[in-house]
């Protein structure tokens, strides 16, 4: 006994014209995708491409408002790039940024991993609120704390030393790293840890031997993310450090290459490109892991 008023199948079924329309719509969609992707890439990277060109321009070429900024009028020159490396402390800045970044990331992991583990695995009644509280630390920003922190930094004797950054930067990286790490750790199935505990390891041992290796890709993503936060930081670096050789890239480049009203534009642009490209490259390598971490943290957290 038929219940539904099912039309005989010939009616309503698609025709040849519909097929062609559908395939055209599909191709239009694909073209739209490529166009948007190219547009996004141009807007995102445009300034950097142009900065790269500028870095190699000669002065008369650059300081001529009628010249095409995207082409070299006199031939390109490396003189400004060389200036950056020879006559400024650029390499010192880069080196400072690097070792500060590494140390800060190390401290972040040292303090953050156990904290994340505690909040992810060891279910205490206060775990949930604590996790949220850590995130709320972000609401007390460097633009507020820098005044009092300069006092504290001076009191510890680290004023004007790069080490002050090593001390303070983890306040920026730890909250978000803990939040991300909680997500990664939660994604490791409990059975594996429990298996290790049955096999004879203590909770701590099980954690170190099973969870850490499995969450490693995620940990690496957090490392990269924390490093970009550190390299980008400006206020603290500006407020705590004056001597040139203690500065990091973020503050060194602007202050060294802008003397009063004189801007060493080509060298500035060269510095920008030289710093931007490697960081973006590494970040891109670990992008998938970072997204996985945000999935855990944002969607489930």
């Amino acid at each position, binding site marked *: 006994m038929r219940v*539904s008023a099912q039309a005989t199948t010939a009616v309503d079924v698609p025709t040849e014209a519909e097929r062609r329309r559908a395939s055209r719509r599909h191709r239009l969609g694909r073209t739209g995708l490529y166009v948007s992707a190219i547009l996004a890439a141009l807007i995102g990277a445009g300034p950097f491409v142009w900065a790269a060109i500028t870095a190699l321009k000669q002065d008369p070429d650059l300081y001529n408002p009628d010249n095409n900024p995207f082409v070299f009028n006199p031939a390109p020159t490396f003189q400004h790039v060389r200036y950056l490396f020879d006559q400024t402390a650029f390499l010192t800045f880069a080196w400072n940024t690097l070792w500060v970044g590494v140390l800060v990331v190390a401290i972040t992991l040292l303090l953050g991993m156990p904290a994340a583990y505690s909040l992810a695995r060891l279910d205490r009644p206060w775990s949930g609120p604590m996790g949220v509280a850590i995130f709320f630390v972000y609401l007390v920003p460097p633009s507020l704390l820098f005044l009092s922190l300069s006092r504290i930094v001076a009191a510890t004797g680290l004023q004007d030393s790069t080490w002050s950054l090593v001390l303070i930067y983890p306040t920026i990286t730890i909250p978000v790293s803990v939040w991300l790490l909680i997500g990664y750790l939660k994604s490791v199935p409990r059975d594996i840890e429990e298996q290790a505990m049955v096999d004879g390891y203590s909770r701590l041992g099980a954690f170190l031997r099973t969870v850490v290796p499995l969450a490693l890709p995620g940990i690496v993503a957090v490392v990269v993310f924390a490093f970009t936060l550190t390299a980008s930081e400006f206020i603290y670096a500006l407020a705590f450090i004056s001597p040139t050789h203690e500065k990091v890239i973020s503050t060194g480049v602007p202050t060294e290459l802008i003397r009063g009203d004189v801007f060493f534009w080509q060298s500035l642009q060269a510095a920008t490109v030289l710093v931007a490209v490697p960081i973006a490259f590494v970040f891109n390598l670990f992008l998938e892991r970072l997204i996985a971490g945000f999935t855990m943290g944002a969607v489930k957290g």
Partner: protein
Amino acid sequence: MSVVEVRGLRKDFDSGRVHAIDGIDLATTEGEYLVLLGPSGCGKTTLLRTIAGLEQPTKGDVLIGGRIVTGLPPRARKIAMVFQSYALYPHKTVLQNIVFPLKASGGMDRAEREQKARWAAGLLTIEHLLSRKPRQLSGGERQRVALARALVRDPAVFLLDEPLSNLDAKLRASARDELKGFQQRVGTTTIYVTHDQTEAMGLGDRIAVLYEGRVRQLGEPVEVYDHPADTFVATFIGSPPMNLVPVDGRLVGFRPEHLLPTEDVRGAERTTMPLHVDRIEYLSGDRHVYGTVTGIGEPTRVIARLPATVTTPIAAGETHTFAVGADRLRFFDAESGQRSTAAGIRLGG
């Protein structure tokens, strides 16, 4: 005219290295319940998705209602699909879920849509759940919501992808029953994918057994069961599987329920064989006898299924003579596995 037809279908993955569908021609009859049966990886789900338009075939065409739909997106094909997970929209109520396809295709105002949705809900007896959200429903209830949503568009064909596998074993039997009854009431052609041969046998008007991207046999359940086209079908269908004994370059097959103690096999034409019994299992009133059979070909491990009505005492460790009626023997070529004849085989005994 068939509702769904597939001609010369080929689907490759991995730049041509994986032939998920390796040349399939299939046509449904109107109103039938066609089951695509096969082990995982055999291509049945890929075939279903290609019919739905979620995958594009590498070669060949899909026809719905006699018109070629290859290249059209799913929503232009007048199909309804139910996924294994039911894919209910978690943020919408049951009513909103059911109404969604009607909103998407347009042409009805709000009152009409709701009326249609309630009709579908009534057919599946879920009117009382209309304001709930999916996460508040049990597995069986979710299935019914998915079916109501499929029903509401008056599709030309239902495509169901293993909808029972997420249910508890206990629930599965009654859900199967409901599903079949539902389909018969509604009368829409249905293509149903499963790896469970019990489901297939119970639900299908016809079964297409798939393996390695090709259809091995297409026929009614009785046909597929009694006259399997090759050894794959013979061993995949039926539980426990058909016994296969190598004899003279061919395989002689007989189902466990046809292998009985000689004294219990009536009829003049029968083939006897001594069976050395290893162990006996008692399952739901039947006795499953595991042992090795000799005398007709190479010694082979077999299973005999003795119903409760056969009371002949059998003991483990003994050798007892069993027999199979001659009309129950099936023959297959040992190399190709294809169905063969009895010509030229001498069976001892």
